[in-house]
């Protein structure tokens, strides 16, 4: 490329960067405190909107002024709504507050912003090292993470492109436009970046294949059709830092020679759709997308396509079909989408996290990236860790960290002194691993070897009260409904698997059911075209392998060892402990199944009981009289007194 174009790119970008820095400096140097509020979907669900309103109202009635800065999600979902208050005049460093309710917000304005007292009892930690307040980096939830993709999440306003540029954003695109496309692909290939959508295909190789295709009209698609129940990494990234993804897409498009790009987002993520659409518009206005990007000869037209909620559309050929306006059914590969994809044009499809990894890689170099993680899986992994775990949320860790470190050190272990039982990795296509696997390093190959898979990054931690048969049934119920119906084995096989599992959870299991589950699972794996069918039996196979005794208890003893399957459990009240005249359980029972015995204690009408467990929660701890047992015939018989006539009749 000619040097004058290089100059033009540099000049164009420098002007934008200077503007961003000027705005940043104006914000930073304004002599008022700053209140950063996490406003992504999870924050809003926890009440961030109310918190923000409370801050605004309190500030209106206050003598001090402050600036409110809406940022994205920082991944600490257990602590939402999260607020960081930067009040330099008070002498304190920026402070991280968690679970900031509207009441707390008003109090902080009054006591901290006006009075200079940070209220130590509500402080979670300071955001940097200092002598006054312990820093959050002393918690392992903070200091063991390694953020590459999510580095800027929760620090910038996702709806303001200048905020991203001020943090170094889009400088990599400007740099990339001065490089030869082959150099970029070489760098990505050398970095060892593997697709973060689940399969782990090397991104560099995919790009190289796409570049080698001679046809015109190539398309780049960002796959944000995150369908796993329990996984929300892609949504958070798009809501918190959309521009890093757009920058990665633009670099990808430049490298493979595409002029059209699409972000495929689920329509169930309305906030993400809105933020990405807005981000594209802003980038176009600044000439970072659109015609002649930064004065170069490179054009890129970018659009958003809203996916309509079909799990199978995460599969690339199904995703393409759905954009074309058909039922999202996968087709046979080859031809691969890089040869014949959307509208029969060569198409590169990458996951959100893969694309968001591209700018940091090009910025710091492939060798730097290779230095993070393991040899075969360089870089970081992002998990959404949910279920029975103390510090649930999004965690970005280097590949190779063990499951034990992740669950017990970083995420604080299992709440309520319960025992760890299993961890389910990879959503409906992944597997359940037991305690023996806690020291397995997290990377693509080790997890696959253990029978689970990286998947897109959903991780559900389960304690001793979770029944593995029921969990397998839950995932099968999901995949069975989401099966597109194209392959017979997937369509009918998953249906039968589900039937058997349902029978087991109801205590109607038969001898030979387990063998049938196994052989049917193998058939489905062998007879399905796409990843959905090939991996659908994984939850069944892994739980059968590691928790076989639990399955056997369901069949032979009609017993659910974890006391979860409702048909196999029952509640009763221990009359030795039940307090005379206490009505806590009876008033909360949604179906009026609790009756009063002749000596004013309580009994459960097993016919009416729906086993919701509400009485267990309601019973005052000093009595602790509610017992849950399996199988149900262990319940002692408690006489129900004849119905009394209503008074006055």
């Amino acid at each position, binding site marked *: 490329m000619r040097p004058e174009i290089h100059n033009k790119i540099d000049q164009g970008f420098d002007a934008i960067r200077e503007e961003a820095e000027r705005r940043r400096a104006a914000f930073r140097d304004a002599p008022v405190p700053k209140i950063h509020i996490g406003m992504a979907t999870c924050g809003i669900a926890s009440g961030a909107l109310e918190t923000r309103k409370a801050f605004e109202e309190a500030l209106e009635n206050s003598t001090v002024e402050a600036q409110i800065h809406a940022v994205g999600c920082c991944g600490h979902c257990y602590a939402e709504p999260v607020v960081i208050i930067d009040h330099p005049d008070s002498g304190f460093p920026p402070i991280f507050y968690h679970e900031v309710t509207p009441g707390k917000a008003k109090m902080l304005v009054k006591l901290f912003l006006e009075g200079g007292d940070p209220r130590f009892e509500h402080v979670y930690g300071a955001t940097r090292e200092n002598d006054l307040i312990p820093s959050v980096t002393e918690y392992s939830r903070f200091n063991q993470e390694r953020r590459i993709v999510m580095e800027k999440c929760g620090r910038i306003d996702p709806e303001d492109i200048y905020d991203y540029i001020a943090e170094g954003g889009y400088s990599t695109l400007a740099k990339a436009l001065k490089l030869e496309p082959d150099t970029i692909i070489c760098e990505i290939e050398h970095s060892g970046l593997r697709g973060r959508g689940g399969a782990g295909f090397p991104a560099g190789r995919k790009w190289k294949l796409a570049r080698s295709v001679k046809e015109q009209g190539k398309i780049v698609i960002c796959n944000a059709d995150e369908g796993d129940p329990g996984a*929300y990494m892609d949504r958070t990234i798009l809501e918190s830092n959309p521009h890093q993804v757009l920058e990665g897409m633009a670099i990808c498009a430049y490298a493979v020679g595409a002029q059209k790009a699409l972000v495929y987002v689920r329509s*169930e993520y309305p906030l993400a759709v809105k933020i990405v659409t807005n981000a594209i518009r802003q980038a176009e206005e600044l000439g970072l997308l659109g015609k002649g990007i930064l004065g170069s000869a490179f054009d890129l037209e970018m659009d958003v396509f809203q996916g309509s909620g079909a799990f199978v559309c995460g599969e690339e050929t199904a995703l393409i079909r*759905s*954009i074309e306006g058909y*039922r999202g059914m996968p087709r046979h590969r080859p031809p691969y989408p890089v040869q014949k994809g959307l509208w029969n044009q060569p198409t590169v499809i990458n996951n959100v996290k893969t694309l968001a990894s591209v700018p940091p890689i090009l910025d710091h170099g492939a060798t730097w990236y290779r230095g993070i993680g393991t040899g075969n899986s360089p870089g970081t992994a992002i998990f959404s860790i949910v*279920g029975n775990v103390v510090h649930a949320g999004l965690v970005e860790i280097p590949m190779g960290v063990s499951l034990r470190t992740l669950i017990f050190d970083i995420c604080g272990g299992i709440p309520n002194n319960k025992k760890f039982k299993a961890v389910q990795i990879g959503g409906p296509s992944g597997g359940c691993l037991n305690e023996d696997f806690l020291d397995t390093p997290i990377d693509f190959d080790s997890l696959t070897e253990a029978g689970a898979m990286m998947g897109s990054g*959903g991780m*559900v931690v389960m304690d001793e009260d979770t029944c593995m048969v029921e969990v397998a049934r839950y995932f099968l119920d999901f995949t069975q409904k989401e099966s597109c119906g194209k392959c017979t084995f997937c369509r009918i096989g998953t249906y039968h698997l589900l039937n058997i599992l349902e029978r087991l959870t109801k205590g109607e299991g038969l001898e030979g059911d387990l063998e049938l589950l196994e052989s049917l699972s193998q058939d489905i794996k062998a007879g399905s075209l796409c990843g959905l069918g090939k991996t659908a039996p994984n939850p069944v196979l892994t739980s059968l392998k590691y928790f076989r005794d639990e399955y056997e208890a369901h069949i032979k003893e009609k017993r659910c060892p974890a006391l979860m399957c409702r048909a196999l459990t029952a509640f009763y009240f221990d009359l030795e402990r039940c307090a005379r005249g206490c009505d806590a359980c009876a008033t909360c029972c949604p179906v009026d199944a609790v009756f009063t015995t002749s000596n004013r204690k309580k009994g459960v009408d097993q016919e009416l009981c729906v086993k919701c467990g509400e009485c267990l929660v309601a019973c005052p701890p000093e009595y602790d009289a509610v017992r849950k047992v399996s199988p149900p015939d262990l319940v002692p018989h408690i006489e129900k007194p004849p119905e009394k006539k209503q008074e006055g009749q």
Partner: protein
Amino acid sequence: MNQELTEEEKETLKHVTEKLDAFEKHRGNLIPILQMVQNKLAYLPPEALKMVAQHLGILESEVYGVATFYNQFRFHPPGKHPIKVCLGTACHVRAGDIILENFERKLEISDGETTEDREFSIERVACVGCCALAPVAIIDDTVHGHMAPSKVEGLLLRIKLEEEMEQREKQKDASGNS
């Protein structure tokens, strides 16, 4: 169940017809069009599907086939207060199905249905993405975290009470003005 369109819906449908012309007659526009229609009408009545088919020049069965494939599209009018119960993995582990059952029992409809007075509808959703608050239910647009079976009745009662209060206010205003 095919309910008659209300007058209001007929009016909206006319509006939708006008909007259709903005879309090119291109198969790739099928899903965006269906999304637009549902956005306006809150569901896809048979009349609308027919219109879409005519506009794109494809068979009605094709449109129906695509619409039923995706979870997003609804064929029943939702209630005035749609209730969505999350049954994602985290909510499931924390007994989201019991919450769903409680709503179903209280409203005497099952998921995917609407009460006869069109006040409430129940829908199961796969993960709304606030797993740390599990189990979760969304009524109207408000997320209710850490749900419990005993909270269900209270929530429904609150909506009814709020509505009654609103009506009383309105009556007061009306009588005050007259």
